[in-house]
């Protein structure tokens, strides 16, 4: 492994680590979501009627492991594998 290949591996690992950190920071959901359920505040009348907070769907992208994080990590692995192959030291055959 030459120096350039080492850089490729370090960069790939760093990108994968960042992707995983961002995924965990987004709640570590398995599947990406387009929205979240938010509890709505109760009116005085609803409270008097013994009601519990109702849920309302609010559009908000939540990064999940699948497909977004997994696709990004796969792309990083694929590109770095190609670079790793391209950047390998070519052996020059010495004339006999």
């Amino acid at each position, binding site marked *: 492994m030459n120096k350039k290949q080492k850089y490729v591996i370090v960069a790939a690992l760093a990108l994968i680590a960042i992707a995983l950190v961002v995924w965990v920071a987004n709640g570590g959901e398995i599947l990406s979501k387009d929205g979240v359920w938010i509890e709505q505040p109760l009116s005085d009348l609803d409270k008097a009627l*013994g009601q*519990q907070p109702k849920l309302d769907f609010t559009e908000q992208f939540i990064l999940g492991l699948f497909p977004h994080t997994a696709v990004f990590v796969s792309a990083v692995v694929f590109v770095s594998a190609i670079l790793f192959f391209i950047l390998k030291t070519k052996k020059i055959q010495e004339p006999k």
Partner: protein
Amino acid sequence: MKKILKTFIVVLVSVTISFAQGFKVKASGEKTFNFEDKYGRNQLTFFSTTPLEDITGVSNSIKGKVTFNVADIKTLKGSISMPVASLKTGIDLRDEHMRSENWMDAENYPDIIFLIKSVSNVITEADNKISAKLTGDFTTHGVTKEIVVPITLTYLDESEQTKKRAPGDLLGVQASFNITLSDYDIDNMVIGQKMADDIEIRVNIVGSSAM
């Protein structure tokens, strides 16, 4: 003899009334409450928890009527239903799977229905608030099972405040119970065990006596 019979009937009626548990509100007699709300403010929520994913779903299309004597909640009869197609989980593709033939089969079994059969364990929490257990037939996916649902009922006489929501007296119903999908021939394996077999259901609905 007539006097004794009369006294017996009076005592019997008094005992029956004193043992009847109901709301101590201005309203009296038999009342019917309709839970259909054109503004979609009534809500049924379900929760599924699996190691892979937590799923929340809601329906705001609750229908149904209940009738009871205000002074005796044990007279409560009626049914509550909800179209399967109205269930939303926040992911359109998953909603489609849920309605499909392989799962809830909304085309052949369009409604989830709870038919109230009896009321037990009545506890008066306040003059207008009662908790009890409803025994009834829960039907989904073409399968009917008897279940017991703990509920809390809150009665509000018509007032300027209640008129803002709907005309007539209002009845708030809050219930929480669990069902096992496999009991209703709903196979969670079909969707890769993303849905738990044991589903928690919460009901938050308000009915009006004037609708």
